[in-house]
């Protein structure tokens, strides 16, 4: 295969997987602490809209991203309230969040920036001069969006906190056994709340990435299952942030490959290619299980 083509797909794969990856980082932390948020999809949708709206209004993509993190935080706080204080089933609260995100983002978009895609002031990729233009590896490693490098750092840092620090040990204890955590006088709900909120912030970043970095517009329903793919990645990575993050890039790669295949084989019905990442998620869940079984 042509190395340039391969490099192009790799660079695009990282770009397309980043929104999933960002969300997967925080969701790993939340699930590690014992609380699922399958409402990530709704948080991402809301954040994608808020980020687009914020950058159109202020002219600054960074402010838009900050707004998106804020809405992510708010929605996650609501999920924490429902699950930890009111004792609502976490999956049901999550489904509510998905539907809310769908409604909020589309409703607000139609009233403000319009249902038709409006151009959003976006975040350009970094340019390190010759390094970014270096053949093959330049665009892959040195030509991504600033958010991509933040994401990688965040994935590593989150993994480090969870696996190597006393706080991480407490978080893991909450997820493994609430009784033991209580016995050790760990403030279980406080730790879980913190992890859910962190998950909301990264999902906010993920949504913002989609509208402000990747597409430079808000389109209704633009998250298109990426929130659920993030949850699938966390399952695949068995709640380890870095692995979940890398798995997300795998889905990005699947997406990049299918887009490239569409142009390479225009005769093939594109619908069969569009479904590849979704089918990949199902296959990955099945294979992921077999690895668990072997390890056990």
């Amino acid at each position, binding site marked *: 295969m042509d190395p340039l083509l391969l490099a192009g797909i790799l660079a695009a794969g990282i770009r397309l997987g980043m929104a999933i990856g960002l969300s997967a980082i925080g969701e790993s932390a939340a699930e590690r602490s014992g609380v699922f948020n399958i409402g990530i999809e709704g948080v991402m949708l809301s954040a994608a809209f808020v980020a687009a709206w914020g950058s159109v209004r202020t002219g600054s993509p960074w402010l838009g991203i900050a707004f998106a993190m804020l809405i992510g935080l708010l929605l996650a706080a609501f999920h924490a309230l429902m699950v930890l204080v*009111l004792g609502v089933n976490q999956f*049901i609260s999550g*489904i509510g969040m998905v539907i*809310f995100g769908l409604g909020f983002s589309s409703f607000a978009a139609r009233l403000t920036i319009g249902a038709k895609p409006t151009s959003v002031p976006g975040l350009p990729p970094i340019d390190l001069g010759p390094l970014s233009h270096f053949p093959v590896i330049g665009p892959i490693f040195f030509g991504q969006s600033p958010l991509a490098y933040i994401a990688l750092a965040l994935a590593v840092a989150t993994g480090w906190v969870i696996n190597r620090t006393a706080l991480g040990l407490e978080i893991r204890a909450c997820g493994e056994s609430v009784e033991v955590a209580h016995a050790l006088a760990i403030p279980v709900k406080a730790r879980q709340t913190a992890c859910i909120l962190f998950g909301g912030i990264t999902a906010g970043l993920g949504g913002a990435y989609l509208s402000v970095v990747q597409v430079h517009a808000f389109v209704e329903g633009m998250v298109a299952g990426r929130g*659920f793919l993030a949850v699938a990645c966390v399952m695949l990575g068995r709640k380890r942030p870095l692995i979940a993050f890398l798995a997300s890039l795998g889905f990005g790669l699947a997406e990049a490959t299918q887009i490239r295949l569409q142009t390479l084989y225009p005769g093939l019905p594109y619908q069969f290619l569009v479904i590849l990442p979704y089918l990949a998620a*199902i296959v990955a*869940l099945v294979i992921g*299980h077999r690895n668990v079984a072997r390890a056990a």
Partner: protein
Amino acid sequence: MIPVRVVRLSLVLGFAALVPSLFVLVAGQSPWRVLTTLVLYAFGPQGRSEVLLHAIPLTLIGLGVAFALRAGLFNIGGDGQLVAGAIVAVFFAPYFAGWGIAGLIAFLIFGFVGGAALGAFVGYLRERFNASEIIVTIMLNYVAVQMVSYLIRGPIADPMPFWPRSYPIPPDCVLPVIVSGTRLHAGLIVALVMVIVFAVVQRQTVLGFQSSVFGANPGAATYAGFRVKALTIVVMAISGGLGGLAGAVEVGGVYQRIVENMGEGFGLAAIAVALIARLEPVAIPFAACLFGIFFAGAGALQRELALPFPLVWIVEATVIFMVSALHWALPSRTAEA
């Protein structure tokens, strides 16, 4: 002293009233006018039948969601199963031409089978590979949408395509209109029959009993010697089958063919329907009518008050949060969902 339950209940109900109202206010409309517009439309001569029309698929899918949730399984794949049922039913429909009423029944059964096959697949992945049925059903929704998009432009396309849609089904497979001058069709009867069937299945059969036990306590179900693995597949198949039946009913009663984005959003709304009904089959048609009002009324809101349709989803989400928070407000009620 005001009792805690009263305080909590007012908090929950207040929240439920506040959230949609806020969005309506931000959009520059009065929540009161929204409410009156909805009620006037829903109980008006034209609105009544439209509300029931939307309640038909919501009842069918809602029954399926509730049946799975009783067994502790989340079926979020209503949209995909609806489409799968519609595809299978429409694919075989031409063979039923001239069969009369038998053709209609066969058409509906094939719809059920299409959705059931998809549901069984999900159940199989769940019991064999422990693959989350939530993720798998959602992923299959996206796959199903693309498959429809492909099929109605290719293999089952209308021979005279003005826009992408499938060929029409033979007249034998059409569910007749039951109230002249409206779109309300015999699918209403199908839905009500299913409500009765599932009320019986839930209360009177071994399957209903075993799935409830399994949902309440999987360990106990295994210990009691239930065939838990088969149960997962059967429950998901039936749940998916109801989604598929909804697909066939939508085709047979409303469109007479497969159209793009058919029934989109019913799967998610059906989850809210099942939760409001507290998974009780007999209560599901009433919950479905409530959402029928939202769906049918959304058109009126858009026309008369220029409120965008996605307001329905905001209301839907609010209702889900409200109903699930009722356990907290009224703790003595038995917690099922």
